[in-house]
């Protein structure tokens, strides 16, 4: 009974979701439900901040500094996508009250994921998150692309869950435990079965963070899903899966890090390089952002591959900056609206600086930030990643990283080029994006002024990692 205190935020969210699910049947006001959801997510943030650090349920569920920081980031991502939802629900044909509720369920799943310290808790969290996401991807039933995205995501996701479960069974079979700490205690470095288990679990998790070679679903799902949901995909689940990956690898297999390090090493390089080249040919902005996020995950994985506290710190810094940048990008994507239609092609941005000078200037800076050009925030993310990589003598990763960042600068610049250098098209609507400005301006300003006072982000990351290493 006492243990329930430690999952109070999750329980609270669950109650909110159920209540809203029922009231939603009678109350047709989607805006109100959405607002209530946002408020309850904010309350959850407060609950999380006031939670005592403790492990519960036979040490299978941990509340510590790491989970606290990641949960707050996840909630920020969820809130951001709910705000995006409000601004676009009517035009995107996703005007259904289940949206916020599904977001809540998915958020609960992600919160369980980052707190999980047990293979089963991990799987439960992952599945709760994934199932909600499958539904969300297919939310726009009338759109062929959206349904396709949902089905594709579901099939591939189910496959990856299967791989994951298979890996879990191997690990359990060869170590006799499902608890991360107990696995670490009883680990047998010689055991080949364990390695196989790790490989399968990593394959499943790589699918969730969309790292190469398990990235195939990403561009299609990003493109097909309604934009607020794509935003959600890019924000919260990546962070949660990354947190899970870190806890899984660091807590249970820290001793045999040599074995999994090379796997992470490879998928990191593959993600960075593939994303850098594949994104060049894209014409759809959402597909481009899909490849961009694959690339960013590649950089973040460098932080994991280092297996040092420096690396972990840089990973968290990177994820925070990634979160802010993506909020800005997706808020921007949703503001590309003209005569009630949304535009997703890069060519639609053509010459938009004539009509929207301020918005274009900010998004151009975001693009430079994504490309990692100083003095914007994206540069610092990469900077810390490279510091960590060089410190743990992974110069090769760092070199691949900078080469990939030069190549990927090309496609970010192409967006800037189209916005600034090409002939202008019609004006975009500016009236309906009031709520988006709430996301757009703060996040862009944060990115621009980050360099003046970077310490908070660094301190938070240092605070978060102390419970892992």
């Amino acid at each position, binding site marked *: 009974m006492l243990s329930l205190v430690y999952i109070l935020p999750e329980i609270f969210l669950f109650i909110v979701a159920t209540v809203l699910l029922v009231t939603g049947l009678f109350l047709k006001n989607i805006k109100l439900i959405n607002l209530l959801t946002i408020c309850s997510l904010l309350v959850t943030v407060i609950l999380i901040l006031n939670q005592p650090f403790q492990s519960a349920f036979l040490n299978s569920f941990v509340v510590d500094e790491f989970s606290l920081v990641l949960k707050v980031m996840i909630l920020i991502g969820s809130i951001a996508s709910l705000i995006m939802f409000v601004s676009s629900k009517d035009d995107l044909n996703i005007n259904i009250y289940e949206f916020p509720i599904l977001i809540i369920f998915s958020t609960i799943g992600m919160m369980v994921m980052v707190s999980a310290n047990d293979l089963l808790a991990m799987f439960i969290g992952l599945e709760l998150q994934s199932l909600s996401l499958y539904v969300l991807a297919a939310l726009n039933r009338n759109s062929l692309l959206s349904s396709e995205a949902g089905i594709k995501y579901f099939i591939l996701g189910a496959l990856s869950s299967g791989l994951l479960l298979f890996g879990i069974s191997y690990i359990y079979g060869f170590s006799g435990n499902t608890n991360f700490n107990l696995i670490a205690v009883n680990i047998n470095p010689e055991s080949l079965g364990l390695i196989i288990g790790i490989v399968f679990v990593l394959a499943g998790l790589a699918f969730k963070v969309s790292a190469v070679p398990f990235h195939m679903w990403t561009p299609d799902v990003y493109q097909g899903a309604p934009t607020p949901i794509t935003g959600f995909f890019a924000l919260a689940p990546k962070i949660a899966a990354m947190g899970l990956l870190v806890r899984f690898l660091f807590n249970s297999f820290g001793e045999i890090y040599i074995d999994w390090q090379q796997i992470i090493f490879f998928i990191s390089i593959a993600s960075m390089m593939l994303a850098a080249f594949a994104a060049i040919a894209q014409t759809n902005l959402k597909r481009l952002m899909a490849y961009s996020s694959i690339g960013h995950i590649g950089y973040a994985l460098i932080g994991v591959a280092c297996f040092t506290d420096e690396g972990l710190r840089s990973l968290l810094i990177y994820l925070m900056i990634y979160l802010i940048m993506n909020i800005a990008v997706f808020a921007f994507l949703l503001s590309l609206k003209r005569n009630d239609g949304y535009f997703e092609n890069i060519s639609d941005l053509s010459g938009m*600086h*004539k009509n929207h*000078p*301020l918005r274009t*200037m900010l998004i*151009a*800076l975001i693009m*430079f930030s994504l490309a990692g*050009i*100083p*003095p914007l925030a994206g*540069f*610092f993310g990469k*900077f810390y990643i*490279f*510091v960590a990589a*060089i*410190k743990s003598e992974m*110069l090769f990763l*760092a*070199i691949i990283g*900078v*080469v990939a*960042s*030069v190549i990927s*600068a*090309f496609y970010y*610049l192409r967006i*800037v*080029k189209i916005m*600034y*250098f090409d002939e202008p098209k019609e004006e975009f609507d500016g009236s309906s994006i009031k709520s988006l400005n709430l996301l757009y301006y703060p996040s862009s300003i944060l990115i621009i002024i980050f*360099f003046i006072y*970077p*310490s908070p982000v*660094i301190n938070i990351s240092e605070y978060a990692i102390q419970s892992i290493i």
Partner: protein
Amino acid sequence: MSEIPILSILIFIPVVGIFFMLLIRNNDDQSSQNLKHTALWIAFLNFIISLSLLFSFDLNNPDFQFVEKYAWIESGISYHLGIDGVSILFVILTTMLVPICILASYESIKFSVKEYLISFLALETFMIGVFCSLDLVLFYLFFEGGLIPMFLIIGIWGGERRVYSTFKFFLYTLAGSVFMLLAIIYIFISTGTTDVETLLVYNFTTNEQLILWIAFFTSFMVKIPMWPFHTWLPDAHVEAPTAGSVILAGVLLKMAGYGFIRFSIGFFPDASEFFAPFIFSLSVIAIIVTSLIALVQEDMKKLIAYSSVAHMGFVTLGIFTFTVQGIEGGIIQMISHGIVSAALFLCVGVVYDRLHTREIARYGGLVSKMPFYSFSFMIFILASLGLPGTSGFVGEFLVLLSIFSVNTYFAIFATTGVVLAATYSLWLYRRIIFGALIKDDLSEMFDLTRREIIIFLPLIILTIFIGLYPKPIINIIEPSTEKIVNQIKMKLD
């Protein structure tokens, strides 16, 4: 020493200016005129403040002055500013050229005036920051940050092939610089700091020096630019708007030269000594090859751009002699080139504004229509080819003197460059200014307007002043240069 953080003020005044300009929302002619005036006054104010540096600068002190140091990212990486005799002139050169550039763009920039001026002021922030920062990460931040406004300046307000040029410019420089970033990180990890003052007295092992030197070199080589990585420069120059070319030739190239002096030879003297013959060869090749290329150019801006590469060859020659004369010569050559090539691009801009072509063949006999213009153009052409009595001579002379003392062969080859420079410069001048005025559309040409005279006057005065009486400049540079050379000698022994 004054307590006012004058360097920070210099760096951030343009940012404050940008903020004010963002507040001007309207988009009509009146407000764009206001924007131009605002930007001009901000830049001019910055220039005045930078002059005050000159008065409170202690000439006998070879160390860094006006130092500011605050904790920034974490221990070892701080917000550390300061200037010495090497950098102060670059700061003033920057603050002087920016108002000139803004003034020069008064007529030629027709659309998106606000973005243009914002880009320029942002660029000024970055440029001043480069010369003032005494921390490698801070330096890198400013060094790379300058790419963003320059990318936009060339890309939005440039000529026909602007997109190609600006991508080439951006990606070339970025690709060169990322390795410097890795080197900076390596330095940070192995020494625990990126503070320039600390690193200047730190001894790297020879192996480390070689690798790190190459990493820094790739960045500076692309930026300065050295043959064979100079190809982005002519493209960028040709397509950039006049003011963009001015700032590119006037200041951006100097960042790399400054980097060579401050970092390459300061941190890695062994490696620099090891690579010096290599640098000499590249410089001499650059001087001769690009001068020859300049001879056959049809486009005025391209010709001047290639001549810039040749002039920068002298700079690198001078710097890597490790003599006081050589480094002083390099610095003076950079300052002089900053003034002269900037002025030459402005000269091109003047006729381009009137006839909208840069093709040399379209001009001829301008002297009868534009006497003042011909006079100013002549002074800059003569300074560019290094005629005694102009600023170009001082730098080149010192460099050649120093290289003679080190290696005669390189000196002989470099001297041929001077002859070639005279050939292409004078020939350019002859084709544009002299001859009979037979082309119809040239009869409409009018002489310099008052605004253009205001632009050229300070540049003419400086060119001649430095040429006739370089003593004050040398007095500023000398103590710090001597200190650098002594430090290198000490480390080499």
